[in-house]
């Protein structure tokens, strides 16, 4: 992290590319992501929502919901037509804990996060647990974003990842 007092810029296309990479990678890797320690292995799959926007507009232009929208022809066609992902709802499993969360917009806001409620008794214990689980989700998303960023910065993005993504969008992958 940096110490910039005015905050780091929020770059819309990076979030859209990150979401697309998550979707693509989850299909390529059988939903398994091997992230560097201390995050470790997580399972990630696209859940019940994908929302798209036009590249020059931050408003949602198309939404796909229901069972497995990632498998629909319309979802892939939206990417092929030039739309970019604005929201992606994903399931994440780490060890025996399962989370469902929508990553939303250029800032990757956490939305409608469902936590695995382990503790149910006592105000204080529940609050501790929920904050701890939120931090765990943030920690995993950070690990995923770092992995995406490392790829995006490397030579392999141009030579391998981007062509593979392109083929996948075309249905050749």
């Amino acid at each position: 992290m940096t110490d910039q007092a005015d905050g780091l810029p929020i770059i819309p296309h990076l979030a859209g590319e990150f979401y697309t990479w998550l979707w693509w990678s989850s299909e390529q890797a059988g939903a398994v992501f091997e992230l560097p320690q201390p995050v470790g292995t997580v399972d990630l799959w696209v859940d019940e929502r994908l929302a798209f926007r036009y590249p020059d507009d931050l408003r949602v232009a198309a939404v796909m919901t229901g069972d497995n929208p990632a498998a629909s022809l319309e979802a892939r066609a939206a990417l092929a037509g030039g739309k970019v992902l604005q929201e992606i709802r994903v399931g994440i499993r780490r060890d025996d804990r399962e989370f469902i969360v929508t990553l939303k917009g250029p800032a990757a806001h956490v939305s409608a996060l469902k936590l695995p409620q382990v503790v149910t008794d006592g105000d204080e214990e529940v609050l501790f647990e929920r904050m701890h689980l939120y931090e765990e989700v943030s920690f995993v998303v950070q690990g995923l974003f770092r992995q995406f960023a490392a790829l995006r910065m490397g030579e392999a993005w141009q030579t391998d990842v981007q062509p593979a993504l392109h083929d996948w969008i075309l249905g050749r992958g």
Partner: protein
Amino acid sequence: MGIVTGPMTLARFRVVGDRPQGWREVFRDRLNDHAFKEPPQGQGKEEVEGWVQVHNLLDAEFDDFNRWLYNDTVVLALRVDKKRLPAKLLRATLDKRAEAWCAERDVARCPNAVKAELKEELEHEWLARTLPSVSVTDAAWNIEGGWAVLHSLSEGVADRFRKRFYRTFGLKLVPWSPLDWLADAPAVEALMSRAPMPAQLGGPEVHLAGRSE
């Protein structure tokens, strides 16, 4: 629904600034200073805002650390009250009172100054018996981690929260960027320089090959 129960929807911020010496006691006092305070009876037409405990919006005292400080995480809620009077009914009632005032004095017209006074009396009377609309937004601040979350994605709510947070703690909140997840400044600069423009993943020239599902 909020930080205590239900699904979470959170805008995240980075907290910029230094903690004061003896921050627990300092923050307790500042929270008490900026806590929600009920407006006097007959007022409340303007918005009234302040901090409350996350457990119950009627608890607006922060003397007990166990109710708002969990290890190094502050958990609180911003309460905003506003009373709304029914405008059409107010205007009609005011007209009737002005007519009565004229009838009592056998004059044709109620002066503007009197009408203003009658309106003030009427609003005071009605505000005293009107319940406010109440909004409560949960928030948490991880002091060690230097970040805070607000249980809302509304820009307006975020602006209000940031201003109140600054007035209370003297610390600035800046919106979280995914770039904050990177390890250090060189990584941020590297990503920004390698990915200044969107990658061409789809577009008008792309034709989708058949996919049956």
